[in-house]
């Protein structure tokens, strides 16, 4: 794939960053459940975390190809760090960038870009996963303010967030057209978080419920107007998907790297595993699928950068890259044999990390629904 010079330079500097700052840390992050602050500070300083936030609000003002490069290369080493980046720079930033007022952007987007605030994105509820329109969180207009009550679940960064983008029903009778989106600060009365979720993978990120108990939200914190919430959330997910697709690509590449390394070192029957045709064919399949995922991911990013709406492309990229990450991680672990099942080898963690990719930000099945909706004309 031929990229522009600036994108090649970006990839080079991210790889340098990963080598120098993240060499041993994915295993530590997996154990401690936290990304080290000094790494987060550097992600902020070099604007790796704010690539698509406009310059006037403290971001890098770069494009989606840049964002995809950052997500791919960081996740190739550590999927948890990838999740941390995409939660802030995409899920939280995009609704503010695309629908926020100048005042909202100044108050929330700038500190997000500058690393002073951590944000979270609250859409999913216990009874509303893929069926995002079935949310039970309500916002009652009290004249001076809205009063929000409800429960959001599986929210990345919830335990550490300064504010959350929350969708809530302002008018139940209108279905998805009755959903609105709010910026809710975690320090406000009635905002609390649930217990830490003990996850299978991406254990370096902090995930919990957000509980809203009659939280008073000022009218100035309504995002994009009443009833526009569902549109805001879908729009955010359409573009945000490019980041998760790139994360999946990175995880797949990381698993492939481990398989290539291990099969060249491991001797069985007096030969390295890599000398067996079964290994070669398996790795050839894995490498081809990873490259196919790469082309889908960057195609979606380039379409967005050229002014298009990559709804179909981003769904295809997310679907294929996530499935590929799972398949490649499975095969890479299989090539490791028993050692792949032991925590001494990175593939054990990568295999667990990969599993979320076909679930969050739209399951593979939701992506299939989106794709089918585009290609089967009604």
């Amino acid at each position, binding site marked *: 794939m031929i990229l522009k*010079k*600036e994108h090649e*330079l*970006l990839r*080079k*500097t991210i790889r*340098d*960053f990963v080598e*120098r700052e993240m060499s041993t840390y994915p295993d530590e992050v997996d154990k401690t459940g936290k990304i080290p602050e000094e790494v987060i500070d*550097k992600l902020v*300083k*070099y*604007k*790796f975390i*704010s*690539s698509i936030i406009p*310059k006037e609000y403290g*971001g*890098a*003002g*770069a494009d989606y190809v*840049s964002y995809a490069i*950052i997500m791919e290369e960081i996740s190739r080493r550590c999927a948890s760090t990838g999740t941390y980046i995409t939660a802030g720079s995409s899920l939280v930033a995009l609704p503010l960038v695309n629908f926020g007022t100048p005042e909202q952007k100044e108050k929330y987007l700038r500190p997000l870009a500058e690393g002073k605030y951590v944000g979270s994105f609250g859409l999913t509820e216990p009874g509303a996963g893929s069926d995002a329109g079935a949310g039970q969180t309500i916002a009652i207009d009290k004249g001076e303010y809205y009063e929000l009550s409800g429960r959001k679940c599986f929210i990345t960064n919830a335990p550490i967030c300064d504010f959350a983008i929350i969708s809530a029903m302002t008018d139940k009778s209108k279905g998805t057209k009755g959903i609105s989106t709010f910026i809710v600060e975690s320090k406000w009365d009635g905002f609390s978080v649930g217990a830490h979720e003990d996850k299978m993978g991406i254990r370096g990120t902090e995930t919990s419920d957000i509980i809203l108990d009659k939280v008073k939200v000022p009218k100035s914190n309504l995002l994009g107007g009443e009833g526009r919430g569902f549109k805001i959330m879908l729009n955010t997910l359409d573009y945000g998907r490019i980041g998760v697709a790139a994360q999946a690509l990175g995880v797949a590449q990381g698993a492939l790297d481990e398989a290539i390394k291990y099969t060249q*070192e*491991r001797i069985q029957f007096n030969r390295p595993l890599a000398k067996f045709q079964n290994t070669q064919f398996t790795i050839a399949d894995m490498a081809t699928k990873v490259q196919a995922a790469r082309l889908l991911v960057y195609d979606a990013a380039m379409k967005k950068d050229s002014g298009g709406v990559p709804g179909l492309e981003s769904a295809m990229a997310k679907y294929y890259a996530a499935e590929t990450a799972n398949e490649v991680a499975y095969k890479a672990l299989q090539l490791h044999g028993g050692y792949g099942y032991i925590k*001494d*080898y990175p593939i054990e963690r990568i295999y667990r990390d990969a599993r979320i990719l076909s679930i969050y930000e739209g399951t593979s099945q939701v992506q299939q629904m989106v794709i089918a909706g585009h290609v089967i004309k009604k």
Partner: protein
Amino acid sequence: MRIIVCAKQVPDTTEVRIDPKTNTLIRDGVPSILNPDDANALEAALTIKDKLPDTIVSVISMGPPQAENMLRECLAMGADEAYLISDRAFGGSDTWATSNALASACRKLKDYDFIFGGRQAIDGDTAQVGPQTAEKLGIPQITYVQDIVLNDDNTVTVQRQLEDGYEVIKVKSPAMLTAVKELNSPRYMSVDRIFEAMKMDITRWNINDLDVSPTDVGLKASPTRVYKSFTPPAKGNSVMLEGSVKDMVEQLAVKFKHHHII
């Protein structure tokens, strides 16, 4: 304040192999990088600029047109301007001829307070260009710099690395300092600076722009003659473990496990 940083584009020697028949470097397909010690020199200049934002950091390099890519990296790291000294007349220059051209470029830039360079380039390993440039400019030089403290009176106090310790030297500007890797950890290119650097101009100077004559530069002006180069015999694949005894034992146990010894 103006700081000139001398930088060189070099092949990434971690990926270079040597042709056993000709004993020359196989450069085909090997990526080019900013010479590591020069990255430390640039970082030192940028650290001063962080403290004194009015500082102008000017990077100069002599090399073929493709060295522009390396200069863009320097701009993306934070340098203010870049100059590429490039002309067929400079082809085949050794350290003597190169330092003639670099000294001339520094004279042309004028009004510099300090010139920073790397200790040596990883392709030639001579460590001569910095000192020779300083000699030709008639300014003091301090090599093997591992620490720089900027003072208020236009002087710097530096630590000069020795094998068994270091010297502390105070020097007044203008002066040439050459950096070792212990000096600092070079910064990364930030996303926004990368995009800005792509739009910045890189000034090209050819031999007519400099106060050197064709007899001062290029192969004919180079007294160095290489009679023979060879690859020293490999020492074997040893790995040095670092850290406390506990850390090293832990690393050793992991390595044993990885090699299926235990």
